[in-house]
């Protein structure tokens, strides 16, 4: 019963944050429509941009559907290595910073003694 209550609290927090985010994005959209930003620039579908020679517009993350097995496998590995690399750099930086602060604090204490 206790766990069920906690799950409900977590889900309620999820719903609350989702509701706030949805309201903020909708309000921003409505505000940009009120000041006269064209529908396509607001990101709404239905109004298409004028693209010369009927070229297919590129959207971030939209390309690459249906890659061949080998290529997508390699891409998955490279992408994963990239993400792990970013996290590793952040971890190394934070640990170095913490170590530096600790040493500095210790040195300052020694000087004051």
């Amino acid at each position: 019963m206790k766990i069920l209550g906690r799950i409900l609290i977590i889900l309620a927090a999820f719903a609350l944050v989702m509701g706030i985010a949805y309201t903020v994005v909708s309000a921003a959209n409505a505000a940009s429509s009120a000041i006269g930003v064209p529908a396509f620039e607001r990101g709404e579908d239905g109004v298409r941009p004028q693209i010369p020679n009927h070229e297919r517009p590129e959207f971030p993350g939209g390309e690459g559907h249906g890659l061949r097995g080998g290529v997508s496998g390699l891409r998955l590995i490279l992408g994963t290595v990239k993400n792990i690399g970013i996290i590793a750099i952040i971890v190394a930086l934070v640990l170095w910073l913490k170590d530096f602060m600790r040493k500095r604090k210790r040195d300052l204490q020694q000087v004051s003694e």
Partner: protein
Amino acid sequence: MTETQTNINMKNRTKIKLVLDTIIFIAFLIAMEPRSSGIAIHEWLATSLIAVLVVHLLLSWDWITRITRRFIGKINNQSRFNYILNWSLFIDGTVIMLSGFMISESLMPALGIQFPRNFAWRGIHELSTNLFILLLGLHTALHWSWVVETFKRYVFQPVFRLFATSEKKDIAA
């Protein structure tokens, strides 16, 4: 509850946390590459992560309630920073989920739900995902000593012991 029982509970909880966090990390890395894994895997995997994240939060419930009660009072700066960072991760993760649902091409249509297309959600999805990697890096950094210690105790040492005993058996034979 005796002290031994409490220790066993703590050990089990740590093991569950380790397994769960490893699953979350690997699933997150796969979900981060929708162009390689495919949209369907990306969406279903990311959505199923909600359940695992709820369990992750339940396992840290005592810490969450303790810091929430004492946040304004006297707690050390690292706990306060950690608390704010965890809330940022929660909010950012929820925004990723919401924007993901809004631009869903596989999950939502399969459930018979269709949202009006709005590419603004795509931008928000990408931005919040990039921010999530940075926050996850900070989260990992702040728990690095726990990660190292737990992996040493429950992964490396048992594997090392396993090899050591099989070596001893070989010598005895």
